[in-house]
């Protein structure tokens, strides 16, 4: 068995750090914690971490400038930025600065773990194959065709984009915010359940004629593809 992935956590508040650490360790990661921005930069530059979880509001140095310096120093590990600044505009700032993902506080532990896993997968396997397989689902990327348990499922272009994105993150939670950004190319916080409506249509198409669902709603977080194969 290969060594467990190592995460570098840069967070100044011990209480939050403890929460994050606990969640990540439960998720099977090894966590190195730095409570100081400059020290975190040094440790990150030394390498050896599979991902970096970085708080945006550190007392002596801004998280945004840490990301910029990490990128300037060609540190390859993907960065997940945590922040109490969680409005859409704040998230765009963080991503523009070079963070690979941005998670607003408060977040739930499983969401953090899911995001970190997604980041690492993206980092190690950036190009999806021509055919993506997960559970009963089979997605032909180029032909934009979808099969469930061998049966063709007709999807609208947008529905296909949603499913394709979920296949990229198969097994992990994708949030509404991620879907909005990656599928619709929009950054803002809708006040109504517009994403859920599109998601429920996709679900209806995928589930028609089958007993069990392939997409589960994770309350307060987002959606997840289910990998189980129906008996």
């Amino acid at each position: 068995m290969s060594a467990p992935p190592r995460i570098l956590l840069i967070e100044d508040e011990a209480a939050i750090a403890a929460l994050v650490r606990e969640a990540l360790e439960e998720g099977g990661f090894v966590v190195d914690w730095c409570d100081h921005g400059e020290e975190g930069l040094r440790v990150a530059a030394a390498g050896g971490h599979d991902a970096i979880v970085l708080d945006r509001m550190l007392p002596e140095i801004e998280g945004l400038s840490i990301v910029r310096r990490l990128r300037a120093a060609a540190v390859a590990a993907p960065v997940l930025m945590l922040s109490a600044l969680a409005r859409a505009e704040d998230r765009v700032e963080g991503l523009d600065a070079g963070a690979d993902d941005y998670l607003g506080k408060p977040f739930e532990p499983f969401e953090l773990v899911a995001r970190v896993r997604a980041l690492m997968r993206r980092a190690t396997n950036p190009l999806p194959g021509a055919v993506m397989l997960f559970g009963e689902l089979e997605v032909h990327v180029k032909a934009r065709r979808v099969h469930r348990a061998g049966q063709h499922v007709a999807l609208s272009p947008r529905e296909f984009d949603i499913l394709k994105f979920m296949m990229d993150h198969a097994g992990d939670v994708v949030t509404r915010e991620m879907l909005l950004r990656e599928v619709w190319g929009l950054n803002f916080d809708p006040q109504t359940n517009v994403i859920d409506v599109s998601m429920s249509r996709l679900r209806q198409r995928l589930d028609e004629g089958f007993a069990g669902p392939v997409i589960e709603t994770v309350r307060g977080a987002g959606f997840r593809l289910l990998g189980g194969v129906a008996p």
Partner: protein
Amino acid sequence: MNLPGTRQSLVLGVAAQVALAIALASAVVFAAIYSEVRHSTRALAQAAIDADLAGLVEADAAEGPAGLSRRIADRLAFSPGAGDKPYYRLEDSARRVLAGNLPAWPDARPEVSPAGQLRLGDGATVQYRATLLRGGYRLLAGRAVNGAEAWLARLAGLFAAALVAMAALAFAIGRAAGARLNARLAAIGVVLGAFGREGAPAAAPVADPGDEIDGLTAQINSLLERTRHLLAARQELSNIIAHETRNPLMHVSARIARARAQGLTGEVDQQLAAAQDSIRQLQRMLDALLDIAASEAQRGEMNSLPELDLAELARRLVELYQPSAEDLGLRLEAEIAPQVPMRGEPVQMSSLIGNLLDNAFKYGAGGGWIRIAVAPGPVIVVEDRGPGIDPALREGIFERFRRAARGGASPAGHGLGLALVRAVAERHGLTARVEDGPGDEGGRGARFVIA
């Protein structure tokens, strides 16, 4: 270098006006001097001629016309240079010429002893006085004044040249001074124009010791400094609010999640799930308030905004909202121009359109129809055939927490959507208003216009 946004130069106009004023004043002074000099020159010449004539009249009294003729001949014999050559003419009562060199008698009646000037065929200008002698004889004495007249003409030319030179110099000095002034104003303009942009200069240059403009610049700089501090303080406060509420909520939320992970069921689990929802709702409200505050703080500040195509943004949003419209049994019509370029913050403009659509879905769904139009300007119109809004309440609905102002049931939401719409519109130099929509029997309808 002109200030951005100026069409004509104040400085050039002032320089031209100063030059004109100096030219006019000089012209008046020069004209007065010239007229005085000319008058004195002619008076002097006339005095000499009059004295000459008086001598000749005395000679006539003493020696008669023959003696007078002799005197005239003598004087002509002593004639100096052509510049002030003397001219005489003595005629008897029958108009026969007895003496003198003036070829013809001018149009002058000797009875009144007139003085005057005449021009001869050879170009000489002769100033003269004529008089009537005893026995009907008449006598004219004169002198060429070409030298003096030429001198007067030169003087006039000199004055005119001086006038032109002074006006030109005044204009040039005015322009040069103006250009310096303009450059200094432009330096202030650059700092003001770049305010809020990344890497903008913090202050306009101030000389020490300075003049009035330096004084003004110093005040502008201190105003900019204060504004910067206020903006930074506002940003810091909003960051602190976010930080100090979200971190504790993070602990609460994590504990609830942990408790629920223990495998709770039934009433307890439902209560905890509801608590989590409440936390999320609280966050959304807080975010909306911070969004509004951020937009209000940046109101009208267009410099730092990127170019964006509002049409493209609107098309994506319509596509996002279309399935929800269908679910609600609504027809969502979109009339979006191919391109609507504007300077705008994409997140904020998305929120603006999204909130207008959310609002129409919530309150206008009863009419079964919603239309969004986006046109260059930019102009955004979202209208519905719902119950509409009482004219008396229209201003109020754009204020925070005013959702109760709209009749009927109060759907879920934080009541900040339209406040955010107005704040974002104003942040982009636009206005938000609501009017009657294309209502039918179902109600008056509502039309929201951002323009």
